[in-house]
């Protein structure tokens, strides 16, 4: 727990000359934990006498389903797993930063950029799947649409990165000023911001997907 510069991502080791940062290791660990937890929960799932963890998972899934339905994606049920995974992954990744020794992997701008590339890819995939390749790609004859796509991705990246980074920075600064109790308040604030940013990222992806497919206007 050193100075403020500790919260910037560090290079841990090199693979074939490519630097591997600690945020990459953390994000792989989170992905493995989510995957393992999902497989374990799938195996232990039972219809009678559901245990508390199963109820939590069902509540979470129901929440995402309601979210998708409210935003107008009733005709797109295959989008629910994507949004749920995104919400769980980014939520866990952001909330990792409030634990004492750990740091959120999304404080690295590369992780946020990778997540927004996933979001953009999902938008294109669902758009092409719903409307056909020619009909969907025809809109990019107008270069303004391409620019708006890129700037959308950029703003999603910077929003996630900036919020998480600023939260960590504020906690680090307050910790270096008043170590005893004061960081707790800012940690609580950071927790709220982290959860809301995960929700915002998922909801924005959902809104972009729905506007790209145009299912809302059809139904």
């Amino acid at each position, binding site marked *: 727990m050193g100075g403020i*510069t500790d919260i*910037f991502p560090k290079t841990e080791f090199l693979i074939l000359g490519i630097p591997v940062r600690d945020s990459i290791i953390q994000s792989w660990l989170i992905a493995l934990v989510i995957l393992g937890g999902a497989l374990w929960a799938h195996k232990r799932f039972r219809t009678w006498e559901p245990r508390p963890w199963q109820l939590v998972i069902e509540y979470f899934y129901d929440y995402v389903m309601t979210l998708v339905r*409210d935003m107008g994606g009733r005709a797109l049920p295959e989008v629910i797993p994507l949004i749920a995974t995104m919400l769980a992954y980014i939520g866990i990744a952001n909330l990792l930063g409030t634990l004492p020794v750990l740091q959120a992997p999304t404080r690295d701008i590369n992780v946020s950029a990778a997540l927004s590339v996933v979001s953009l890819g999902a938008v294109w995939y669902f758009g092409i799947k719903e409307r056909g390749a020619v009909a969907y790609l025809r809109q990019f004859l107008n270069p303004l649409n391409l620019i708006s796509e890129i700037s959308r991705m950029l*703003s999603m990246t*910077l*929003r996630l*990165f*900036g*919020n998480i*980074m*600023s939260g960590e*920075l504020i906690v680090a600064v307050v910790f270096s000023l008043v170590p005893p109790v004061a960081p707790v308040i800012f940690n609580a604030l950071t927790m709220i911001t982290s959860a*809301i*940013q995960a*929700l*915002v990222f998922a*909801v*924005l992806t959902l809104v972009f997907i729905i506007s790209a497919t145009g299912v809302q206007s059809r139904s």
Partner: protein
Amino acid sequence: MQPEQILQFSVVTTIVVGASIVLGTITAALMEGRAVAKAFDDMARQPSVSDQIRGLLFVVLAILESTAIYVLLICLILLFANPFANIYGL
């Protein structure tokens, strides 16, 4: 690089960062206040839709907040990764 120039550089950077944080957060705070006031107004007027309004309010606030976050990012770049500092070898 002379010591006076380094001092000058850091003083200018600090002043600019402080001023831009202040100016950048003013508008975001004002607009967020307007959004929250409007949302609370409507929630008081129609309590039946208050849950939907609350859910949307958080999302919209986070999006409004992002303009202030951009200012913060610029300030962080100026403070910790200033491109001109590398050029002039500070």
